[in-house]
Every structure is written in structure tokens, then in C-alpha cells.
């Protein structure tokens, strides 16, 4: 039995927030610990009191797993581990462990320094939190404890993103996090083996979309950049330290080469070093093509893209600049933005989601007059464009993944139940599995039929197969034995062996039934009457009259005794063992019918 609790309030937002609790065979695992990017108060963090009402989180949870470094999957982690309190292990892949703290610190800076929030985690908390992290490799089975093990699979999407398989005994769950089934320029596609988990938990935010091809998006992006540069304008592309930036660089480099363009492209220095460092470190996480070419030349050392110097921003003429941070909230990208905003020939292309309160968010919402530090008003005349290259699985991708993993049940998160009826039917029809779509905050219970392996003793096997019809591959054969459960192992043995092993003696069950018959004669004579009667009827059975007056039919004993109060009634005691139940009952009913009147 699984119990899956999904916490994802406020569906319908562009950026989901993930935090899923799974109870599997007595183990409790938390999958992702995301923050809600839209709220500025306590609503942005999950309400963990739901779990803690029963005691400490550390005692309740066996582990926490983080799928990738996006803030909507790990943003609440320091809050959770340091402010709410959790000291157990936190698992994530190596790249995620390396990049997570950078993004968390960045986010913390915006929220606390720029927006003046108080109830937020500190830099020290981020550090302390990361100390609890255990990094894992792809396809490495990690034993969390004696019974619980986890394994990471490649998910594409961003550097270091992984899908996790959680296994307890023979029950398993696979959690996908965010994944992508089509490779892009710098990352491969998600892949999982035919692990046949009992449950597959998948994101479904993009399940109902049919995506515009990447080529078209790229074509439009390049067109915009080209047009701006042709008319002498400057293009600013604010980026996060890692992620799409590399993808876009490769794209521009190829385009510049093909079109023989001369305008310079710059990349923030800090960015290049860090990016190169991480990509070199995690080269196995990128796609095939990059790994191949990396040997010949560093894929991230470009011919047309050069390191940026802040003085260049004042140079006349067209140029393209990649600068951090991505939401234009501080630092170099904001500086450049301020210099270029007043010229309508220039353009800024926002490559991703911007948090409320940042300049990026404001200009995307259409604001064209911004208040800067020192009460200065900045008029934005440059063109503002937004494009999203984020890689998520659509309906086709979800079907592909299900086909690869072959789960027995599927659970989709982030969907609105009634709007996902079609997808649910599609999955159920094509794969003949149950599909669940819990609402936010709902707990789903999934019943599983776990296979319990039992060893059968050779002796028993030989004995049982010798009786009855020959073993037939097509027909199940019924066998009898005793199930011994000892130290987490199950064995099927013969009853005798079980008794021996356990040091028990076999109990004998004996039934005695009293049959009253009317007979005034002496017991001895009644006994004789009974004997003759039975001998006459039960011709196929061995009926004996013993010297002490009792009668035996096979192994059943019949004795005639006098009734304690009534002289005219005799009581026949019919006694048999459990094994002779059938005959015993038959005899009893026979005798209850009474003895024939005329007897010698």
C-alpha cells in the first residue's frame, strides 16, 4: 500500500511548486521541497505542520530527495531543514548539490536584501543545510537504511536533473521531477529502464500542450537578435549562471558562423569561468555530441563569443551581451540594462520566469517607467521580449516514459482533475494501468499487490509433486505445507519439519459426541446391539467388538454407558480424531437415527 500526499497549492501558475510525501511500506520519503515563487509570505513554504504534529520530522521522514536545482523544487529546503528542523539525509545528484546553494544564496539575496523580508533563511542556514546532503551518482543504488534504497536516473531538463526510484523490498516508486524526453543542444533526453515500479509519479503541467518545435522558437529568437543587430541596436540577454545560457550561446555561435556576422557577442566573465568549471566537472551529464566535441575543443570556448568588460557597454555599435543575474534584479545585467534602456533600437530578451519585485518581472508586465535607487526614474524605450526555452515533457513525452518504465500505476501531479480526464483515459487505455490525478493537498492511497518470495523446501516440493496429477505448466498446482516466517525470510516446509525446527509436538484433536438412545438393557448388551447394527450396515469398513465392550469402526471408538439419571437411556460416546472428522460425523448421524427395534 502506498500513500502519496501531494502538496502543490495554487495550481495554474507558470512555475509549479513541488513537495510530495510518499509512504511506502512503512517508510516515509519527501520528494522535492519547493518554494512557491508567487507569494511573499508564509504561503510560499509548504505547511509542514501536517507532518510534524506527530513528532519530530527527523523521526518521521526516512529521507528527502531533491530532483534538480530549480527553486520550485529546492527553494524551501533550507527553511525546511534549518527553520522547521530536519537532520536526516538529503539526497541529490552531484551537479545539483554543487549548483543548489548558489541559486539559494542568490534568491536569498534578492528576497532579504532587496525586498527586506525577515522570515527567511540565512546564508549560514544554506551552508548548514547542504552539510546534510549526500550526493549520488546516476544508476547508483544507494542504501538509505536496511530496507530503503534509491537510484537516480537521467532526466534531461537541466544539468543534474534526475528521476529517482525508491525501493522498499519489492515495492517501488519512481518520481520523475521535471524531465524532458527530447534531447537539446547541451543535454540528453531522459531515460529509464524497464524497472516496472508499482507507481510512477509524473509532472503533468505540460501534458496538454502540443509544443511548437524548437526550430521555430530558435528561428524566431535568432530573427529578433539579427534584426536588432542589423539596425545597430544592442541585445541584452540576462541569464542565470547555468542552464539555458549555454544552450543559447551554442545557438548564437552557430548562427554567427553560418551568417558570417561581425557584431560582437559577450559573455560575463564570472559566468564563463563558473559555467566552464561546472560543465567540465559534470561532463558526463551533458549530451553525447558535447562530450565528443569536448575532446577536440572545449565546447564552451567560443570563437565569436568573448569575455565581457563593463567598459564595453559604452561602446558604440551593435552587440549581444549575456549577463547575470537572470531577473535583472542586481549586478551586471541591471547595470547594462540601465545604460541601454533609453534607446529604442536596443532589445532585452528575458529567457525565463522572473520573480515578483524584480526589474525583470516589472518590464515583462509592461511597466515602462521604473523607479531605481535614489528615486531616479528610468524610462524603458528598448524592446522587451520574452521567450521560454524550458524543456518539459508533453503528453507524448509522458506516454514515452510510461512505455519505458512500465509502471503498474501512474500518478500525475499539477493537473486539474476534470481537465485531465482525457489524458487519464488515454493512459489507462493504452497501458492498462490505473491513473490517479490527486488534487492539491489530497492524499491518494494506492493498493499494490506485492510479491512475497517464499522458499519451498526441496523435500516438500518432491513430496507434493509426487501426489496427484503431473505438474502442468498451464495449470496451477495446489500444495500443502507450513509457512515459517523467521527473520524476514519466508519458507514453506512440511509440517513435520516445521514441528521439528520449532521444537513443538504435534497436538492431537479428539472429538467426542454423545448420542442418546432408548434402551433399558445393560450397557454391555447395548454395545452388542450397536456392534451388530453397524457391522450390518458398514460392510466396507472394519467394525470390531473389543473385549472391553467398546466398538471400533476404523479408528473411531464407540462406547456405551449408562445415563446417570435415566435407567432407560443409554449414552453412546463416539470419539474420533480430527483426521477422521468425516467418518465420525457420518457415524454420529447414523447412530442418532436410532437402533433397529428387533435385535438379537
Amino acid at each position: 500500500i502506498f500513500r502519496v500526499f501531494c502538496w502543490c497549492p495554487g495550481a495554474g501558475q507558470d512555475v509549479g511548486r513541488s513537495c510530495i510525501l510518499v509512504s511506502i511500506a512503512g517508510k516515509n520519503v519527501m520528494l522535492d521541497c519547493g518554494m512557491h515563487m508567487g507569494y511573499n509570505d508564509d504561503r510560499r513554504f509548504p505547511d509542514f505542520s501536517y507532518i510534524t504534529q506527530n513528532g519530530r520530522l527527523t523521526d518521521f521522514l526516512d529521507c528527502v530527495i531533491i530532483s534538480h536545482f530549480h527553486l520550485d523544487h529546492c527553494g524551501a529546503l533550507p527553511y525546511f531543514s534549518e527553520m522547521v528542523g530536519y537532520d536526516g539525509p538529503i539526497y541529490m545528484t552531484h551537479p545539483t548539490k554543487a549548483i543548489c546553494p548558489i541559486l539559494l544564496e542568490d534568491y536569498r539575496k534578492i528576497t532579504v536584501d532587496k525586498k527586506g523580508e525577515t522570515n527567511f533563511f540565512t546564508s549560514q542556514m544554506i551552508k548548514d543545510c547542504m552539510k546534510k546532503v549526500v550526493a549520488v551518482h546516476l544508476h547508483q543504488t544507494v542504501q538509505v537504511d536496511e530496507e530503503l534504497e534509491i537510484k537516480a536516473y537521467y532526466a534531461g531538463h537541466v544539468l543534474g536533473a534526475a528521476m529517482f526510484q525508491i525501493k522498499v523490498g519489492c515495492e517501488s516508486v519512481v518520481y520523475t521531477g521535471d524531465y524532458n524526453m527530447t534531447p537539446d543542444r547541451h543535454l540528453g533526453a531522459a531515460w529509464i529502464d524497464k524497472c516496472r515500479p508499482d507507481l510512477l509519479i509524473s509532472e503533468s503541467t505540460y501534458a496538454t500542450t502540443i509544443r511548437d518545435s524548437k526550430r521555430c522558437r530558435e528561428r524566431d529568437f535568432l530573427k529578433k537578435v539579427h534584426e536588432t543587430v542589423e539596425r545597430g541596436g544592442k541585445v541584452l540577454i540576462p541569464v542565470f549562471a547555468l542552464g539555458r545560457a549555454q544552450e543559447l550561446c551554442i545557438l548564437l555561435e552557430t548562427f554567427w558562423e553560418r551568417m558570417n556576422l561581425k557584431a560582437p557577442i559577450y559573455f560575463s566573465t564570472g559566468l564563463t569561468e563558473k559555467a566552464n568549471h561546472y560543465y567540465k566537472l559534470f561532463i558526463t551529464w551533458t549530451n553525447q555530441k558535447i562530450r565528443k566535441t569536448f575532446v577536440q575543443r572545449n565546447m564552451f570556448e567560443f570563437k565569436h563569443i568573448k569575455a565581457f568588460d563593463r567598459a564595453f557597454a559604452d561602446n558604440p555599435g551593435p552587440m549581444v551581451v549575456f549577463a547575470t543575474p537572470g531577473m535583472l534584479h542586481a549586478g551586471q545585467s541591471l547595470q547594462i540594462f540601465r545604460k541601454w534602456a533609453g534607446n529604442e533600437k536596443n532589445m532585452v530578451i528575458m529567457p525565463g520566469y522572473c520573480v515578483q519585485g524584480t526589474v525583470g518581472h516589472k518590464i515583462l508586465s509592461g511597466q515602462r517607467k521604473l523607479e531605481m535607487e535614489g528615486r531616479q526614474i528610468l524610462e524603458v524605450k528598448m524592446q522587451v521580449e520574452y521567450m521560454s526555452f524550458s524543456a518539459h515533457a508533453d503528453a507524448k513525452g509522458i506516454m514515452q516514459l510510461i512505455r519505458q518504465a512500465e509502471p503498474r500505476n501512474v500518478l500525475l501531479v499539477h493537473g486539474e482533475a476534470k481537465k485531465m480526464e482525457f489524458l487519464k483515459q488515454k493512459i489507462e487505455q493504452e497501458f492498462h494501468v490505473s491513473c490517479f490525478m490527486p488534487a492539491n493537498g489530497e492524499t491518494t492511497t494506492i493498493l499494490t499487490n506485492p510479491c512475497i518470495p517464499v522458499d519451498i523446501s526441496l523435500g516438500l516440493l518432491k513430496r507434493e509433486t509426487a501426489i496427484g496429477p503431473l505438474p502442468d505448466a498451464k495449470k496451477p498446482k495446489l500444495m500443502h505445507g507450513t509457512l515459517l516466517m523467521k527473520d524476514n525470510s519466508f519458507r514453506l516446509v512440511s509440517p513435520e519439519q516445521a514441528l521439528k525446527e520449532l521444537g513443538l509436538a504435534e497436538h492431537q484433536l479428539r472429538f467426542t459426541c454423545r448420542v442418546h438412545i432408548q434402551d433399558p438393557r445393560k450397557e454391555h448388551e447395548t454395545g452388542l446391539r450397536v456392534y451388530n447394527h453397524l457391522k450390518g450396515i458398514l460392510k466396507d469398513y472394519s467394525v470390531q467388538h473389543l473385549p472391553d465392550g467398546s466398538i471400533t469402526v476404523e479408528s473411531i471408538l464407540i462406547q456405551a454407558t449408562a445415563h446417570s439419571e435415566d435407567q432407560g437411556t443409554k449414552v453412546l460416546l463416539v470419539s474420533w480424531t480430527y483426521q477422521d472428522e468425516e467418518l465420525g460425523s457420518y457415524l454420529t448421524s447414523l447412530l442418532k437415527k436410532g437402533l433397529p427395534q428387533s435385535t438379537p
Partner: protein
Amino acid sequence: YRDLHTFELQAPTRLIEWARGNRVCVAGYGQSDGNEILQLIPPPTLLTKESQGLCPERDFKVECGGFSERPVYSLKYVPDTSLLVTSGPPDSSLQVWQVSAEDSDVIKSVSTIATENGTGQSWAKIATTSARAPWVLHGSRLDRVQITEVESRKNVYTAASRGSEELSGLAFLDCNTLLLCCATGRLCLADTRQPQSLLEDMAVPSAPCSEQWCLGTRHGAQGLEPSSQPVARLSSRGLLTLTDLRKTSEFLALAKARVPSPGSGAEFLCISWAPALEGYLAISGFDGTVHVYDTQSWDSSGREAEPIFVHKGHAFGGAGGSGDPALVTVHTWHLQKPRTLLSAASDGSLHVWNWVQPCGKC
């Protein structure tokens, strides 16, 4: 191109139908079970009049879907109702479905309109109208044309037959007038007010048989006499004819399109008028391209016409040219945006495109 968006459907479609609220419907036509009917919401870029190159929302969204046991060859929405009708092999019966997008996202099968099936019947061509009541005009052959009321499934009208040729298309010109096009190119008109009325024939250009034709009528433009709109016909050899229904004895115009020969059959021949551009039509079904023509420069000479634009996208798409090249199965015009078309091909691709008009024109 001014804009080009390419999408990939899970299964190829041979129909693209517009529905209320700018929705688009596609459906699978595979032989096996489990064909999907999908009602899609186009991305905002297609819904607004002006294009916004780098709009964040560039994807189609599946609004609702249904499962059909038979391949869906034709689908028509019944106007002013939440119903749609589909048809496909193996026989000429129709399936009626209910779309209730607000309650659930499943398109439910509601009923079947059965037809008597003679031998050798293929699938029915359909057209719908709700002018007098929700009606569906359907038939696979000239002698099997009838109008059925969709909800009650009662027969309302049966056309008097003149022959048993296979139909390639039919349309309601207005609530009383029907236009039928046979695969041989023969055009017939019928009036529903005169049941059992004889059908009138119209001129067909002399052509070797084994040529197949299909029909293109202008979507009922408001306030215009439907019979004043020329009817276009396209043949599998690339011949294009324009006929004015008021003067059926002669052609308004005759032209030839440059198409590969031998053609790939008439399975997916498609011709349609642009709703927002006067005199423009598009053809497809010969290969992986869609041609757009301006018929205003045509005359009756029958010489080769120069297309204004050729969309070649489908020929280049696809997974590295494996197997047969893609064949465009259907195309349709955007109802409001002037030079925008949607086209689908046998490899599952769906393109939405818009070409740049050279200077000096509209």
C-alpha cells in the same frame, strides 16, 4: 515566411476543422483502434490579429479529446450545438459526439446515424448546417445522399439519384441549396424544398477518366448570395476550374497547377478559398507542399498558373527522411488572419504559416 510554427501531433490527421471560439479540431485516421479526436486551442499568437514573434505561449493546448474506434476521415461541427459528426471506413454510417469543454475534457460518443450499406460503399462525405435545424448532409455515393437531423436521427431529405458515382465532396450553399461533387468531377445542385427533385448537372472539362476531382466552396460569407461565389474544383492531374453557379455552361476560369506526375492519387486532394483574401485559394495533396494561387489573374485558357507562394515545410520535416516523404493530407485557412494557413501531413506534422507579401500588393 513571416511566421512559421511547426508542431508534431502524436498521430497524423487528415482533417483540420475550425470550431467555435477559434478552436481547431484534428483526428487520427489510423487503421487500428484508438484514434483520437482532439480539440485544440491554438496559441495566442494565432488568436490575435498581430503576430508577436517571441510570445511566451506558442503551443497548442489540447482542450478536450475523444477516442474513436474507427479511423476518422471527416469531421464536421454542428453549428450552434455542442455536437460534432464524424465519418470513416469501413462503412458510410456517421458517429455523433458531444463536446462539453466546461465540464470535462472528454469528447463523448453519443449516437450513430446508420445508413443502409450497399456493396462497395466507402465512407460518407459530410456537411452540416443549423440554419433550419441541426442537419447533417451525408452520403458516399450520388444515389445515397440524404439529410438527417442530428439529434433525432430522423431522415429529413433524400436526393433523387441519377447515378451511383462516388462523391468526393458536398456542401450546403444555403439552407435550401446543396452542392454535390462527384469524384468524376460532375457537379450537381439540389433544392431541399423540392424533395425527390432531379439534380442539375454542370459542365465538366473533358478529361481522361481515372482523374479524380474535389470541391472547394467559399465559407458562407455573410450577406452574399451563395450562388454568386465561384466554386473551385481540383483534379488529381492538377487541373483547376472555377465555375459560377449561375452560368454553369461555361467555366469562369481554367488553369493548371504544376504538380508532380504521376500524382500520388487523389486520397488527400484538398482545395480551399481564403476567407479573408479575395480570390485566393490554396491546393494540396500531391506531395509535401501547399500551393497558394491568386485566381484574379486567371482566364479560361487553361495554361499553367504561377503560385503566389509554395509552402514546402512538410517535405523537409520528419525524422531524417526515413521512409516515404510526407504527403500533405489537408490544409485550411485561418478564418480571420489574411495570409495564415494551417496544414497537416502524413508524418504527423502540423504547420501554421504565414507568408510575406512582396511589396506592392495587399
